[in-house]
């Protein structure tokens, strides 16, 4: 007989059996995506080496170098200070057991995605029924640029830490939220933005309970994480914002601009090259507008406001770049977007979006395995 307590536990963030099921399904979803993409690639006659693909794609060699040699104060590798330290640290730790940097990066990526899925499931179950949660999970599994949740990039680790931080923020476990947020701030620039939803929830909590919870000060760990990264810049580069100097120089030529200029540059640069416009520039322009539209949809659907604050700040910060190539990948890693997707009531809209993203997800994965300009 179901007691009130049993029902309450079941409705609150899922039971252990459900979590284990989600964990396994998440791993299987990555395996399925990888296998289907690889099979399609091989059937098309492309025999490209997987080791070469995974080992040389994008920023992976840089993270492997940092994991092996750490940051350099001088020389041609000194500019690798632009990459955040948490992933290389984990790769170095896993390498002790796995004996391979690349294998460590891939294992971290797959495990992180699975754990991210579990915490995302728990997060969805806080506010939504089983059906909406299922939609949210499937939406997450069919995320565009989902191939980056398989490779040794920071995306999987980052979404895991974001999901954990936001989940524990909702549960008012400020220490756990702060630690996860600090690690996220040491993984990617956008990680420090987790401080915003935390502050929002603290204000709402203080207003409702008419008292300030001193334990909420643990959320200061999040900006501390970013400060630790700045400290690394000071130690290895000589100034707290050395990474800004390196980003503005070769080979990135990236500086902070207003989003309008960033979008205009994406369009204008893509105008001269059809292939790149299709692979890089138009996807990131479209993903920007999807993210901004999600803010209005989320507000209309009464999605938790702290999630919307994170989406808005994340989108803004991501597109403050003068020469952006990975906007689509970054937006795909904004996990609260899938909460907005789950909140939509219209099944026609939801299923159509699922169909489109499902097809494009495979398409992008194959292009990436081919070595095309998917960044």
């Amino acid at each position: 007989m179901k007691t009130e307590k049993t029902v309450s536990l079941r409705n609150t963030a899922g039971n252990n059996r459900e979590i284990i099921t989600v964990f396994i399904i998440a791993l299987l979803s990555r395996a399925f995506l990888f296998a289907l993409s690889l099979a399609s690639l091989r059937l098309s006659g492309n025999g490209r080496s997987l080791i070469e693909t995974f080992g040389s794609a994008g920023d992976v060699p840089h993270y492997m170098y940092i994991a092996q040699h750490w940051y350099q104060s001088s020389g041609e590798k000194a500019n690798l200070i632009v990459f955040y330290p948490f992933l290389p640290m984990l790769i170095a730790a896993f390498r002790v057991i796995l004996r391979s940097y690349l294998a460590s990066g891939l294992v971290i990526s797959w495990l992180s995605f699975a754990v991210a899925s579990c915490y995302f499931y728990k997060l969805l179950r806080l506010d939504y029924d089983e059906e909406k949660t299922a939609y949210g999970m499937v939406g997450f599994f069919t995320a565009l640029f989902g191939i980056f949740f398989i490779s040794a990039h920071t995306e999987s680790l980052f979404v895991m830490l974001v999901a954990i931080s936001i989940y524990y923020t909702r549960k008012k476990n400020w220490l756990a939220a702060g630690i996860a947020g600090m690690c996220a701030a040491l993984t990617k620039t956008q990680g420090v933005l987790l401080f915003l939803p935390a502050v929002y929830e603290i204000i709402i909590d203080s207003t409702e309970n008419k008292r300030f919870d001193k334990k909420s000060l643990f959320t200061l760990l999040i900006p501390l994480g970013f400060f630790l990264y700045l400290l690394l810049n000071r130690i290895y580069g000589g100034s707290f914002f050395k990474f800004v100097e390196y980003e503005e120089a070769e080979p990135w030529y990236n500086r902070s601009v207003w989003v309008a200029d960033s979008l205009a540059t994406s369009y204008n640069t893509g105008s001269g090259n059809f292939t790149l416009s299709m692979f890089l520039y138009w996807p990131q322009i479209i993903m920007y507008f999807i993210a901004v539209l999600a803010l209005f949809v989320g507000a209309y659907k009464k999605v938790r406001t702290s999630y919307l604050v994170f989406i808005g700040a994340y989108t803004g910060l991501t597109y403050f770049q003068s020469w952006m190539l990975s906007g689509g990948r970054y937006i795909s890693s904004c996990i609260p977007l899938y909460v907005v997707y789950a909140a939509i009531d219209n099944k026609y809209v939801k299923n159509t979006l699922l169909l489109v993203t499902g097809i494009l997800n495979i398409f992008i994965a194959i292009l990436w395995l081919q070595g095309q300009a998917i960044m």
Partner: protein
Amino acid sequence: MGQFIGHTGGFFILAAVVLLAGIFTAEAGVVRNRAALKKNGKTALYVCCIGIVYYLIMAYFKNTTAGQTSIFDFGAVFDFLGLDDMISTYGEPFIKDTLSGLGMPLFPFLVHILGKIIFEQYGGIAVWLNFLSAAAGMCCLYNMACEFFKKDVTPHMAIAVLSLPFAFMLFTPGSYGWTFGLVSASAYALYKGNTPLWLILGIIAALSNKLGILFIVPFVLSKINTFPAFVKRVSENKLTSNPYIRLGYLFFITSVDGAILFLAIGGIHV
């Protein structure tokens, strides 16, 4: 096309920020009366939409007559007002002369400070400050009218104000929208009996634009004991209550406003 995509993207994310700020004021208990917040939100949205309409008209006709840029190049409206180029060429001193409208320093100083933080987007910042201030000012007038007439004044009040001649100036990078908002807010503060706030907002308005000195007018009117009764008598007069008279007035006033806007777009100094 790139500029159009960029400006649209920038506009929508700022609109989202304003929306989230509004939601925050309700959830954090800053504004307790959610019904009033909704009504004021609708009024503010209405004002901003009217402002966008003015902007689209200015951009469309200026660009089609200039014939050099896409009709969707809204950024060229700044060009029409000569703002962005002047800022980038001459720097801060020129901001004081150009943005100040009638020569007061506070608004250009504020835009300059914000521009240092927000990627030197002086034109965009100035326009956004004017939009938001005009919307806030209209909300203050709306609330004041609802309380004075003791009934829900229709949104037609907003269009009646925004169709006045020169109303389009509220939505340009000059300091007019900003000043309008401050003067309206100061009038509302005085109406609610908060004289210190009336004075502070009024002084800020006067430092932003010489027309801001008009903040003294509500104070003078409040000293005329018969003024409130006079306003009520006028509003309840059969002539002014007549919908045909009201719509006729609206037609007349929007025509005059349109003519002045046309002259402004044509580059004749108004």
